[in-house]
């Protein structure tokens, strides 16, 4: 099992801004939450995209009931924006070369996604069965 790093102490020392690495685990909810949290998306040593940040974001919103700003940094592009927004990100560090206006279009790739996630408490795939 990967080493578990408790960030609670770090949080107490730095209440406004926190950066989480994908391998971090949340631990107990701290008394005060920062206004902004960034989660990094590096490439794995195996050469594949490291998707732990998706689950970490979901857990932050769910387990800590975190309502502050959540920023995605690292190896992200237009084609990830839809998934990132669904799990709870609201800021996205994109390369300078990408047009921000154009990027907005990519949030709506799938207008009616099947599953519940951070953005949708209900499961459409189930709800649509009873319509």
């Amino acid at each position, binding site marked *: 099992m990967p080493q578990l790093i408790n960030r609670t102490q770090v949080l107490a020392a730095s209440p406004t801004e926190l950066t989480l690495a994908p391998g971090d685990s949340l631990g107990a909810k701290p008394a005060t939450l920062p206004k902004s949290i960034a989660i990094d998306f590096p490439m794995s040593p195996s050469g*594949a995209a490291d998707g732990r940040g998706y*689950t*970490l974001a979901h857990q932050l919103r769910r387990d800590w009931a975190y309502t502050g700003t959540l920023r995605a940094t690292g190896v992200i592009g237009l084609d990830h924006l839809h998934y990132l927004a669904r799990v709870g990100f609201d800021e996205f560090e994109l390369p300078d070369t990408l047009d921000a206006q154009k990027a907005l279009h990519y949030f709506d790739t799938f207008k*009616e996604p099947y*599953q519940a996630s951070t953005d949708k408490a209900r*499961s459409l795939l189930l709800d649509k*069965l009873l319509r």
Partner: protein
Amino acid sequence: MYQYDEIDQAIVDARVAQFREQTERFLKGELSEDEYRPLRLQNGLYVQRFAPMLRVAIPYGVLSSQQLHMLADIADKYDRGYGHFSTRQNIQYNWPELAHVPDLLADLATVQMHAIQTSGNCIRNTTSDQYAGVAADEVVDPRPYCELIRQWSTFHPEFAALPRKFKIAVNGALIDRAAIKVHDIGVNLRKNAQGEVLLDVYVGGGLGRTPIIGQLIGEGIAERHLLTYLDSVMRVYNQFGRRDNKYKARIKILVKELGVEAFRAAVEADWVHSKEGPSTVLPAHLKAMKARFINPTLDATLDTAAQAQLAIHSAAEPSFAAWLKRNVVAHQNPNYRAVNLSLKRRGVPPGDATASEMHQIADWATAFSHNEIRVTHEQNLVLPYVHVRDLFTLWQGAKSLGLAQANIGLVSNIIACPGGDFCSLANAKSLPIAEDLLSRYDALDEWFDIGELDINISGCINSCGHHHVGHIGVLGVDKHGEEWYQITLGGHAGNRPGQQAALGKVIGPSFKQEEVVGVVEKIINRYLSLRDSEHERFIDVVERVGLEPFKEHVYATTD
């Protein structure tokens, strides 16, 4: 079979538009090869030895006649007039042009089909029993559960960049034809004394480099928890699965390293957040999902005249009788049978079918099987609703096209990946070995004399030919730049009700291509001399006597 609603259709259509736009950006140079690769992979598009290979999902193996006609049309329009049915209920095209793939996907979408998540580090096509819904030994029809899993896993936002690929299989019968214990997640559906459906969830099975039998993580879970429990298993894997080494990145390694208890505890710690929440599958949901599977209306009264006619044909035509014995399977309705059309014949790679064969099989499905076809992990096709009165006519038609080899479960029903002839991952070719074996074992009498025997061939350790669960497994290995073949014995995915799957064991040093057929022949001959009667199958003898008698025979005479 399941019928899409407008949301299902909108999602598949949106995917076509998304992939078209991504491919345009790549062709214009706005996406690098490294950026485009994971995007195309999650649409089943590999770059292979000669051309891109496109893998199209056949969810839990179910096809309509209309869909099979479309697969045939695609083979003609975008490929070289054939397709390859794989061991995971997919079809693969070996020669499409990258620039044409968006149009190909648009054609597929018109018949409710897609290539979503057929490759890449994501949840792949969910597989199941090829006889789902018709099997005589079925306890629970797995198809509605498979469809729930298909939709839940389609574009799941949390699980699109997993440590590695992820395969889910579902079984609902007494005999596990879905091989659930060699999948990342295997779901076994059963009923308790009250008739309620329970799930046994096996996690961490798999073939490949480190073959492992899955462990029972969730036992007797109520069916309403299907999606929330799977969510939690995936979340634990996404969070803790290894990403430092792609060969240790599958969930089986995590389960092994953590141990079953710790893994289960991690799943349950996450599950408390969603258990009984909005993704709980209520009885009304399952009822509605079952209603989406529009099953054909079958004759309820026993057709004794047709049964009598069948007996007459069977007595008069020994080769028809042999076909009935091997390729025709009992059905829940006594008037019907599930019929295997064998795609194992000399001169054709196992699982390949031409466009004209696909059209013909689709026409037979229309005429004789209520428009439905199934794709099997043994790389054959099944017509699941054939009335007893139509069996003889169907057999005559299949025979005329060379699709009536009575070899299901026998020596010539060889399962093989495309291997080094097509696949850029392969260490060695699979197809010449399959062809050599098909040439050597070309006589019906000999197939029947040898009896039940599964031969599986993989061209590399990725194990797409499932050699670990072949009674005889053949694995292509690279030895100083040359193609060699390792032989395993005694593997199976569970042959009898309740039987645990087993992984084959290596008999010894590997062989050159030209030696393989001789070695298999020696192994089979040794079996024939060891069996106590023709009722003792090959796999039974290997279980009884172990590997030694086979090793002695193979290696003693090789020198």
